[in-house]
């Protein structure tokens, strides 16, 4: 039935056989994780955000589910550090799947150092995490200031040759930050990260996370993420990877119509059957394109702005 429909898409110069990747932070810290993500059927593997040194992250609880099909996480950027990058990239190469290394840092030099290791290891691209909402100094603090965004993206883009994606979160200035990221040399934008939130247990009267803050993800943030993608695409027409509450072909299609060239999935891999999810989305997108009378997914990217 879906013969002749082409889901091939392009992001930051990478050719992807379909638009569905994992989002950073869902596994992605070890070669075994990469293998598992590969089995989930993603078109590219995105690593956990890597910082220069090993980070143990926050103490558990690190993730809780919330009513409304959401997750709240306060993982605290636990990651193996740069020494973890080469084994991941090697495994991806072995599996013949594009790999994007997510890069974190608390200052410009750290971003450069980690991104350089990614490049040396053979990563296909890096995604700069400028938007983690629950790790002080490592995320949204940077991303909500357009000038910081420019500085980091510019510094990394001028140091490495592989494509740079900038991952931004919800902020008043997100469209401005997006513009600055592109100006700084980002080939594509990943939108959005989790949204800063708090959960309190009403019996112990304590915040659930020791660190108090968590990042909200999944279905609850989907309409917010679509809004950010819509606004950034409308203003700047860049290549966008849409993230936030993608959990089926419909939510993926919505992201694509709003302006995404590809999508990433985090929460749905946890709350749904991760082994079927990508397959179901890919098949659903094919049938959808047929229903719309389109031959390939590229025609659907940003279509809402054109109609």
């Amino acid at each position, binding site marked *: 039935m879906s013969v002749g429909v082409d889901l091939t898409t392009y992001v930051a110069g990478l050719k992807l056989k379909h638009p569905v990747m994992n989002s950073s932070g869902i596994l992605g810290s070890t070669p*075994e994780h990469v293998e598992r993500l590969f089995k989930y059927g993603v078109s590219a593997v995105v690593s956990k955000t890597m910082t220069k040194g090993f980070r143990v992250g926050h103490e558990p609880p690190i993730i809780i589910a919330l009513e409304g099909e959401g997750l709240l996480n306060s*993982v605290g950027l636990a990651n193996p550090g740069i020494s973890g990058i080469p084994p991941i990239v090697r495994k991806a190469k072995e599996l013949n799947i594009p790999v994007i290394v997510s890069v974190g840092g608390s200052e410009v030099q750290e971003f450069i150092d980690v991104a350089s290791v990614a490049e040396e290891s053979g990563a296909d691209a890096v995604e700069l995490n400028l938007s983690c909402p629950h790790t002080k100094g490592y995320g949204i603090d940077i991303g909500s200031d357009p000038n910081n965004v420019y500085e980091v993206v510019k510094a990394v883009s001028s140091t490495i040759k592989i494509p740079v994606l900038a991952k931004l979160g919800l902020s008043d200035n997100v469209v401005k930050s997006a513009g600055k990221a592109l100006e700084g040399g980002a080939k594509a934008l990943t939108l959005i990260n989790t949204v800063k939130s708090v959960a309190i*247990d009403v019996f*112990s009267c304590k915040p659930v996370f020791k660190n108090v803050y968590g990042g909200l993800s999944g279905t609850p943030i989907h309409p917010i993420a679509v809004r950010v993608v819509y606004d950034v695409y409308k203003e700047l027409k860049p290549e966008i990877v849409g993230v936030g509450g993608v959990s089926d072909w419909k939510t993926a299609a919505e992201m694509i119509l709003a302006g995404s060239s590809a999508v990433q999935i985090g929460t749905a891999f946890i709350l749904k059957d991760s082994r079927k999810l990508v397959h179901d989305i890919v098949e659903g997108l094919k049938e959808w394109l047929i229903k719309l009378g389109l031959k390939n997914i590229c025609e659907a990217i940003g279509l809402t702005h054109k109609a």
Partner: protein
Amino acid sequence: MSKVFEDVDVAVGKCSHITHSLNHRASINTSSERFHNYLLKPAEVVSNKRLSEGLWRVEMRPISRECLNDVKPLQFFMVWIPSSDEIPLSVSDLTEDTISFIYKVRGLGTKALSALRPGSFVGLKGPLGNGFEVSYVRPSSKALIVAGGSGIAPVPYLIKKLAVANVQADVVWGVKSDAELFNLREVLPDLDVRVFTATEDCSAGYCGLASQLAVELLNEYVYSVLIAIGPKPILRSLCSVRLSGGLEFYVALEAVVKCGLGACGSCVLEPTDKLLCVDGPVFRCGDIKEHLMKGGN
């Protein structure tokens, strides 16, 4: 050693329906059920007592009973102790409206748990993981349960569920020294079960390792299933036991479980890509051999 595993695989091949069912078990029925399991459900501590040196038992009453439905033996909960930690603990027993855990005081989390008084509140995330499906064990057959140290924690609920399925259990419980032992009948008053204890320092019961005692029993009696719970070395050596006949080997593993939801990857059972928190903690020996064969604890 790999030869041994292959033999086990062959034995497994004979029961392909079981293998299939096992795989099936790996996927939780509906995503909404999964979702509900992942919510943090408040519970009130009812009692919290020392059973022996290092081992404690805590009983909790969830504010809503729902999370007590359909809990399988060897499933676990992430137990959140407010302001201190969240740790994985296997279900030790269930009543109409309470759930119990047996735990060994190790570090900060378990210490904080042991300090909770009745009336304190905790949060429970679960049931998590795949439990042991007692209905797959041949009725009227016998099961051998081998527990090392705090591996005894899930045994009471496992025995209870096996009994309901008309499977009688023998338990081998191995510890370093008799101070760790408590009378299993304290937590299992009604069940007809034989408990064989083993101590490494020969201070009580069988003198030696639980796995050695288990092998002796396997030679003496006929069991349809062996379930081993405890430190990796015990599991590794039991999975290597070579036996003829249809004995099924299961092991319940431990790993560092930080999220319990298959997200963080901390519980990956290297060198496989299996995650203990969603694919385990119970596995058939043959399905996890690469991990067991890799050294370490």
